[in-house]
């Protein structure tokens, strides 16, 4: 206890910074009260209760009174060593106050950096949302006369809602088709890498798939427009012909191959790496414990994958697919270069001039737009923003729904 009062008196003696010293005084005062009112009664109570023990202990430890005391009155006897270990800054009230929590020094700075980063990302999101809403508003509140002016720039627009409706349809159609094509293949590749391939082959395939992600979308666009479209159109024509044999169904197909189907194939290739990479990591984390449980029950390799790996990776694959969907929804360049656009709500996926996606529409119209037309484009961007948010929220909802069975507990 010896050093405590002296700390108090030292701070009093120091002139100049009364406020801070006052705080220091309070702390040391509280310590003094704690010492006199809590510890001392405990000391005497302990001494009463353990009087017999004390006798015994001091007999056992004859020759070492200090040890005996320390055993009997652990709260009252303080060694200088413990003092200096636990109160490294006993003489420095300023430092002492900082030592009251573990969050100090760089720890505190880092806390602000981390908090700042978190706030920054929220601020960016808010800024984008505010920009979109603010700049889209004029398009929603425009008079008919003003919209007629916009229509001279966007001749195929009937009304704002009509335009946005067809574009949202086209965007979702292209992205969902891409997802439908990519997810099974990506899951297959991921399973092959994580559970079937020899280590060397798995490494090479992983690398190649990751490399696919490094190809710029404009290159995909060129390849899709110049190579894929002319070659795949006969295949599309064949499928369209087969489907048309169903009574009452007419499936048209494009002579150039610049259809939603072709664009979706390219989109699928583009989102393949992200879905594969995320699924692969999830499958790899399947606990050996569960794989062995399945094998020990007499499961074949595929049955083991089905009972242990796929259920474990289910929510991860859904997250991966949603990430891919997010990318497909927003993909601009490839669609712009491949798809022959149209403004219909049409399921003729093998024909050109049917639908258009939001991103490709904005990119194609933006360079020659001004005034209210820009607001119309931004309104379309707002719609895309909302769709992407909804997709992400949906993914979270799906993964959280079965958290109880996820294996995390």
């Amino acid at each position, binding site marked *: 206890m010896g050093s405590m009062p002296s700390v108090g008196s030292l701070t009093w003696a120091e002139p100049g910074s009364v406020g801070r010293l006052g705080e220091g005084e309070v702390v040391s005062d509280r310590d003094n009260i704690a010492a006199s009112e809590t510890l001392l009664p405990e000391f005497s109570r302990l001494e009463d209760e353990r009087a017999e023990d004390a006798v015994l202990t001091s007999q056992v430890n004859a020759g070492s009174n200090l040890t005996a005391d320390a055993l009997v009155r652990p709260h009252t006897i303080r060694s200088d060593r413990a003092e200096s270990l636990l109160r490294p800054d006993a003489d420095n009230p300023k430092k002492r106050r900082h030592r009251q929590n573990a969050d100090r020094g760089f720890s505190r700075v880092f806390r602000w950096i981390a908090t700042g980063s978190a706030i920054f990302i929220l601020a960016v999101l808010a800024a984008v949302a505010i920009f979109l809403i603010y700049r889209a508003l004029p398009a929603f509140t425009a008079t008919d006369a003003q919209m007629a002016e916009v229509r001279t720039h966007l001749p195929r627009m009937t009304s704002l809602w009509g335009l946005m409706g067809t574009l949202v349809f086209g965007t979702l159609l292209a992205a969902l088709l891409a997802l439908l094509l990519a997810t099974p293949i990506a899951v297959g590749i991921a399973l092959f890498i994580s559970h079937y391939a020899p280590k060397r082959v798995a490494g090479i395939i992983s690398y190649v798939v990751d490399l696919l992600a490094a190809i710029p979308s404009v290159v995909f666009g060129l390849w899709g427009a110049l190579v894929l479209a002319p070659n795949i159109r006969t295949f599309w024509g064949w499928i369209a012909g087969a489907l048309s044999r169903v009574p009452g169904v007419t499936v048209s197909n494009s002579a150039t191959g610049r259809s939603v189907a072709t664009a979706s194939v390219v989109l699928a290739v583009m989102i393949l790496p992200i879905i594969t990479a995320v699924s692969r990591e999830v499958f790899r984390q399947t*606990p050996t*414990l*569960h*794989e*062995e*449980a*399945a*094998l*020990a*029950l*007499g*499961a*074949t390799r595929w*049955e083991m994958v089905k*009972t*242990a790996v796929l*259920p*474990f990776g*289910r929510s991860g694959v859904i997250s991966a697919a949603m990430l891919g969907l997010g990318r497909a929804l927003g993909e601009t360049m490839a669609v712009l270069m491949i798809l022959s656009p149209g403004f219909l709500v049409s399921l003729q996926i093998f024909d050109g001039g049917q639908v258009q996606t939001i991103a490709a529409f904005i990119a194609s119209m933006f360079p020659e737009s001004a005034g209210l037309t820009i607001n119309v484009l931004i309104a379309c961007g707002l719609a895309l923003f909302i769709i992407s948010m909804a997709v992400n929220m949906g993914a979270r909802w799906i993964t959280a729904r*079965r958290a*109880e*069975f*996820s*294996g995390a*507990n």
Partner: protein
Amino acid sequence: MGQRIDVEHLNIYYGDFLAVQDVSMVIEPNSVTALIGPSGCGKSTFLRTLNRMHEVIPGARVEGLVEMDGVNLYDPDIDPVAVRRNIGMVFQRPNPFPTMSIRDNVLAGVKLNNKRISKGDADALVESSLAGANLWNEVKDRLDKPGSGLSGGQQQRLCIARAIAVRPQILLMDEPCSALDPISTLAIEDLIQELKNDYTIVIVTHNMQQAARVSDKTAFFNIAGTGKPGRLIEMNDTPTIFSTPAVKATEDYVSGRFG
């Protein structure tokens, strides 16, 4: 009814590394055989060769003979999947399938066999298996809840129920109680005594009291040093191993002088 296992001159390799050398033993039907020995002596490895589970690790192979009632498990035309269906296994840490309910966990092995099973039969099998694992009364009201929500001891008994639901001939247990508290351990040990009537049981344990309590025969494995293969030192009736073992190393181990 359980079946007997004969092991003759079994060498177990991981790649070129000889992990266990020249093990020969006879495991009688409907008996409990305990495998004891210090860590790394190859007793778990040996156990996993009895249902070919060690083959999961790339490069693992064996030389020698393992027979179940006279049929060599390592014959080229024997299907390892069929071996594992007939020789069930319970692992060190309870491993119910986390995505499945308690009921589905019990039925997991049966459904793997691609058998269509009627709901009535499934219900009966779930009840008999869980009852056989002394778990039925604790979980009968929450069969649709996830198995991972049970306590560790209950999860381990669920794993035993899952293993016996496919009606194996032999049950292998790899330190089944090492992750459990004493009460749950007692429950499993009692269960082992009951399961003995229907299955041949081989159990690996680090707990010598447990070996003494549950087993009829005890096999002591030891290792000469790091990098050397594990060997079967001695196998005999459990009371003999714990009172008058033939080999000095066994005596040292069971009396707690090393290991």
